[in-house]
């Protein structure tokens, strides 16, 4: 049991990192007013690009960098379509996800058999060697891949950037009211491009983490909807970096449980009262496909709670999300 929980926590951390990286990118992009539904596609491109680079060069760090870069390239398309051409953000995003999926399936088919030396599990520098001995959580928290630690570090950076820097303040302003930002001499165009590119870089990083650290192999469509969960995670976190930490680990735990659901038995013994009623329900709730919907259900619940509890003008969604801006249109 102890080893099961330790293993579960370890998988939780790994899965959470994917969501955390992709979610942070989505959060930045959305705070600047641009919804990016192309995360899934950007993750796949990052995953394959990173994987191929690592196979060819043998350097997983170089692979990670290429993954980030490719995510940004796809994001540049999104930025051009949505910011410069002012086309519909939803359509552009979905199109990019389909494009990313198609491209990686085609170009990735020859790389499925390959194996790599991905990110190794390392103990946390300095204090890790002492803390790793803590029962149950020690291994999960203090022996992980470098990208797991990096994601946590970046979360602090993102939080600081958004809430304690001028660029962050300007980015939030652009996402709340681009016209207002423009009248204050803030370049809406430049900041939105920046936000979308950073978002794409994070999505690419999430994908590269997936293929280089999480599973250390390439399978077409390996993101398996995690890009969409990242979009849900931003809503779950109510566009706040700190809540995203909680959400990413919660969703990561659900993901880890889903993968292990076959080996968990929560059914009651045949003699227990109502066993014949409860057991089928429990079994149904534990099927992997049903468990895959839990992050979305949790997001719906959070959204409903947020709407009920706060008045609409205090809702955390950036006011100008989905709105394109140009000066002389009113």
């Amino acid at each position, binding site marked *: 049991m102890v080893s099961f929980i330790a293993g579960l926590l370890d998988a939780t951390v790994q899965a959470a990192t994917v969501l955390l990286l992709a979610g942070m990118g989505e959060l930045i992009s959305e705070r600047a007013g641009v919804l990016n539904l192309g995360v899934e596609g950007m993750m796949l491109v990052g995953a394959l690009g990173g994987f191929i680079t690592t196979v060819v060069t043998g350097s997983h760090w170089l692979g990670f960098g290429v993954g980030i870069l490719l995510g940004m390239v796809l994001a540049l398309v999104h930025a051009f379509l949505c910011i410069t051409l002012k086309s519909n953000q939803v359509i552009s995003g979905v199109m990019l996800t389909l494009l990313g999926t198609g491209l990686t399936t085609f170009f990735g088919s020859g790389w499925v058999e390959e194996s790599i030396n991905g990110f190794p599990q390392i103990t946390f520098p300095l204090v890790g060697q002492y803390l790793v001995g803590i029962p149950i959580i020690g291994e999960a928290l203090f022996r992980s891949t470098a990208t797991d630690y990096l994601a946590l570090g970046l979360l602090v950076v993102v939080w600081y950037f958004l809430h304690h820097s*001028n660029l962050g*303040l300007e980015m939030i302003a652009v996402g709340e009211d681009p016209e207002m930002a423009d009248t204050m001499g803030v370049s809406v165009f430049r900041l939105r491009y920046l936000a979308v590119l950073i978002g794409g870089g994070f999505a690419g990083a999430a994908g590269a983490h997936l293929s280089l650290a999480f599973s250390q192999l390439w399978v077409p469509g390996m993101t398996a909807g995690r890009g969409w969960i990242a979009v849900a995670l931003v809503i779950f976190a109510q566009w706040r970096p700190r809540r995203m930490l909680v959400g990413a680990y919660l969703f990561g735990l659900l993901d880890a449980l889903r993968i292990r659901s076959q080996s968990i038995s929560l059914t009651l013994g045949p003699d227990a009262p109502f066993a014949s009623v409860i057991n089928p329900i429990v079994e149904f709730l534990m099927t992997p496909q049903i468990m895959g919907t839990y992050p979305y259900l949790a997001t719906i619940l959070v959204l409903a709670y947020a709407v009920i509890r706060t*008045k609409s003008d205090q809702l955390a969604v950036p006011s100008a999300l989905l709105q394109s801006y140009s*000066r002389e249109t009113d």
Partner: protein
Amino acid sequence: MSEDTTLRMEGILKEFPGVVANDHVNLSVERGEIHGLLGENGAGKSTLMKVLYGLYSQDDGDIYLDGERLDLGSPQDAIDAGIGMVHQHFMLIPRLTVAENVVLGEREPATAFRSDAEDSWLPAAIRNNSLVQSLAGQFSLGLDVPEQRIQDLADQYGFDIDVSAKIWELDVGQQQRVEILKALYRDVDLLILDEPTAVLTPTEAERLFDSLERLTDEGLSIIFITHKLTEVDAIVDRVTVLREGRNVGTAEVSSVSRADLAEMMVGREVLFEIDRDAVDLGEPVLRARGVRATDNRDIEALSGIDLTVRQGEIVGIAGVSGNGQKELAEVMAGIRDVTAGEVVVNGDDITGAKPRTFVDSGVSFVPEDRLQYGCAEDLSVMHNATMKDFRDSRFGDRPFLNYGELRDYAETLVEEFDVRGVSDVTETKAGDLSGGNLQKLILAREIYRDPDLLIANQPTRGVDVGAIEFIRETLLEQRKAGTGIILLSEDLDEIFDLSDRILVVYEGEFVYETTPAEADRERIGLEMTGGGDDEGQMETSPPPSGVTQGSES
């Protein structure tokens, strides 16, 4: 041209597809004056100012500030040149604090990195390095010093503002003062105010005027856009009048009469006096008793209102905004639930019924915010004109609608109510109409269905003189036709001119009732601010005294 001229705009031409918004307009502003820019809605005032603020680029013409030609590619250029603008719709982000809104775009670095910091732990050599300054300006944010500066500015001009409060926590008057602080913080020499009183109560407008006079004393020049002649009289030194994109002329306010200005503005004579014939009052159309309701924040806004309106009666409701008028109007129109009391329309108790029931009972409603609640901006004039009556059998058998009939009906409304700017009722969007014309369309929709009770909340706010005249006459005609009307207005003149009975609302209760003939304006003013009550409410709302004039300097 005098030496004191600070701004000259010469031959400004700005065209939009199908419209010439500014047709070679000239404008010159002298240092230290309040220069009025007067014109009806759609006359091109805002366009001209957006050109001056770098939001629009002109198709022809030049702008000179203190003799230098300005080439304004963006608002940043205008800010750098010392021009500030307070927009008609506030440019504030409700979720951010006052200080964050004010410093946005100024790139204030963390305190330690400020080049003017006195006891920074960083050596001055590093702080003054341009690369370090640029990085600190982008990747850090220090609000302590700016907050102090904003507070000092606020104190200097007598603004009561908490710099760390979030914008949504402030009332409209305070938000406007934040807008002015935004400009002052950037050391502007020329301040543009686009219809600043449109959202203010008369008391708040008075305070604004005081502040503006203090600003001009300090040497600032102000361009004051308005379509209210009373305001021109009150604070403007010289005025330039625009009509249909052209400038009609510039005049010293002291040398022209109000009637002259109105004629320049509208292009014809305007009547200020309204004939109000006596009308016999009929049966009560509305009887409300003990009505209580809460506002959007769940705070009680109406604390036991009794109101009876009879056929052919206009009941004017006066009060400082935010004393329950909005809630009162919405409760009587059936779109806000009461927490206690009853609402009886034409003898039927329809308390708590759906808005549709109120509509079907003959209640019409002109809401305060015409863009948000009065119309569907993106739908056509036809859709908006028929929005309340499309279920009527004359528009076809359900579920199908007879579009030909709908169209004819909409065209009739547009014609009879003189709604301008409609090229095709099925094509023109309601949101594209100017304020006055949109208001006429809404009024047409609400009145043409021959209501028994009409609730008009601020029907003439923010519309031009021509439209005001029309709207007031329409209300009086409707009164003659036997409709009971509740008129909520912050314009006391309007209340006096139109009402048969005046009620003063204060903190969700009626505190005073009178008629225009007997009314004493001073008494009404006192009652509106809670000062008329003998039970010592003076203590809870003292007049805004304690403002220190700049005597210590």
